[in-house]
């Protein structure tokens, strides 16, 4: 309860800071509009204002402060503008029965989500297979593991455009191209976590399996895999967030089919800041839901498997 209050305080402080920041960020535009409407602005001429700092202009025109929160294309939209746009493009679209129209964030969110989940599934499978072979083969461990770690210092998102183009030339489906990038980002936490998890049974437990004359496969299925489950879920949480980032960035290069990344790009082309922010929030909400869903699965699974919580 106490921490809920603390979190709320931080969130309220952030929102307050955001509202406060709207004033200097949008004041130039506000002054311009007020001048056009024939209101009094200090200083009166546009060239003079252009060279003024945002804060000093804001302090000289306190009368304009009320207009900075409702501009059409603000430099920084106010939180309620973003919330309105978000609402209009999600629930508002459902109400009008156009949940999957091109202007609906639900459609774009769904496109991103499907690519994310595909890449996440591939990445998790690849990660588990790699981890199992690394744990069972010393040669794999020594030769592949250093490269897996090194692969993460490569800014892989940078090559997203190339992967997209190459896979498109091979006439692979778009969603697969996005999924490949998501996969690359999400397999790493799974490999690292699973290697740790598969090695987590202690010597006593391994000896016990030996006294039962268990084969390596039996040890894997009955001891190693079950005891790696907590590690797996911890990695999945990191992996799914990474996978979403991969999908969004892939959509920057593959924007013709929509998706949250495509909304970001379109918004940046046309200066639609409110649209950019609401797409960002949709991505954030998606990330939160995905991580939360894995958290729930984690709780249920671990409880049924009898791990102490």
């Amino acid at each position, binding site marked *: 309860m*106490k*921490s809920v*209050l*603390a*979190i*709320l*305080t*931080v*969130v309220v402080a*952030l929102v307050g800071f955001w509202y406060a920041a709207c004033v200097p*960020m949008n004041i130039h535009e506000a002054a311009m509009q007020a001048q056009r409407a024939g209101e009094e602005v200090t200083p009166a001429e546009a060239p003079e204002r252009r060279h003024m700092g945002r804060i000093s202009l804001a302090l000289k025109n306190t009368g304009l402060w009320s207009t900075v929160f409702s501009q059409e294309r603000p*430099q920084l939209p106010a939180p309620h503008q973003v919330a309105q746009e978000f609402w209009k493009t999600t629930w508002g679209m459902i109400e009008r029965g156009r949940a999957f129209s091109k202007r609906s964030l639900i459609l774009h969110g769904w496109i991103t989500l499907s690519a994310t989940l595909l890449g996440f599934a591939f990445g998790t499978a690849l990660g588990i297979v790699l981890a199992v072979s690394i744990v069972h083969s*010393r*040669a794999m*461990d*020594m*030769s*592949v*593991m*250093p*490269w897996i770690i*090194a692969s*993460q*210092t*490569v*800014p*892989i*998102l*940078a*090559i997203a*455009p*190339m992967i997209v*183009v*190459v896979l498109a*030339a*091979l006439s692979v489906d778009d969603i697969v191209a996005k999924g490949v990038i998501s996969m690359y980002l999400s397999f790493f936490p799974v490999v690292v976590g699973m290697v740790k998890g598969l090695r987590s049974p202690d010597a006593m437990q391994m000896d016990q399996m030996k006294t039962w004359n268990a084969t390596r496969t039996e040890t894997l299925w009955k001891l190693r895999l079950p005891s790696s489950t907590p590690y797996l879920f911890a990695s999945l949480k*990191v992996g799914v*967030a990474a996978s*979403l*980032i991969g999908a*969004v*960035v892939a959509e*920057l*290069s593959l924007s013709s089919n929509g998706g*949250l*990344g495509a909304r*970001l*790009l379109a*918004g*940046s082309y046309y*200066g639609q*800041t409110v649209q*950019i*922010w609401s797409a*960002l929030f949709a*991505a*954030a909400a998606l*990330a*939160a839901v995905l*991580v939360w869903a894995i958290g729930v699965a984690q709780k249920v699974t671990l409880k049924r498997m009898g791990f102490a919580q």
Partner: protein
Amino acid sequence: MMAWVFGSLLFWAAAWALNVRLSRLSAPWVRFFVPALFGMTVIIVWEGMVRGFGVNPVLLPAPSAIAATFVGEIPTLWGDLVQTFFKGALSGYVIGCTAGVLTAIAVDRSPFLQRGLLPVGNFVAALPIVGMAPILVMWFGFGWQSKAAVVVVMVFFPMLVNAVEGLRASETMQRDLMHTYAATPGQGLRKLRLPAAMPFIFNGLKICTTLALIGAIVAEFFGSPIKGMGFRISTEVGRLALDMVWAEIVVAAIVGSAFYGAVALAERVITFWHPSQRG
């Protein structure tokens, strides 16, 4: 042409057999030789497959072609590197990480704020922050400043979370000891809690090296002057000059690893006392 395919496959089999044998040894050089041989195998198989099957260079250029482009285009690559890494990524990294640590120290005296900041910071660190790039490019223009701003936003929260965790890492017993020495809060911070936080701070710094490079490169997709690694990648992809793209990726890989290595080296020097560094 099939000779290339079979030759490379043969090399692969031989190298793998050698690696399996070597991995049973415990000599120190084996630890470097085995992964190096594996890396070489990948490159040779790649070269062999591309030549053997005559893969179109628009899809996948051979490593030799990439190396030739790399050597031939060093001035361009260097210019891009300076623009993206030294101006964009590095300055953003320094500002963002410093701000993260300073914020952590600022909220250090208030457990209330810490309890609020940790979950929020953890949440934000998991978000696709890189999506902020178009907004920040709009605010700060096409120059390196907007790339630095993206990097600042990207590294701030992971750094903050790690630093806050780190400042809580010292044990009650140790803090009590500082108390019996009549240490002021400032002294306690400088002499006990900041050093104790160093492993966590370095963890954050290492995570942020990759984020910084990613942020700077992706931000260039949204607009940049006519140089920079992200700019080069997106334009050369458009021209289907994939050897140049790969050359940029090689540069990014080298710089990314070197950056990470430098931070890891600093960690070794500064947190020499930590169990993970003594092994």
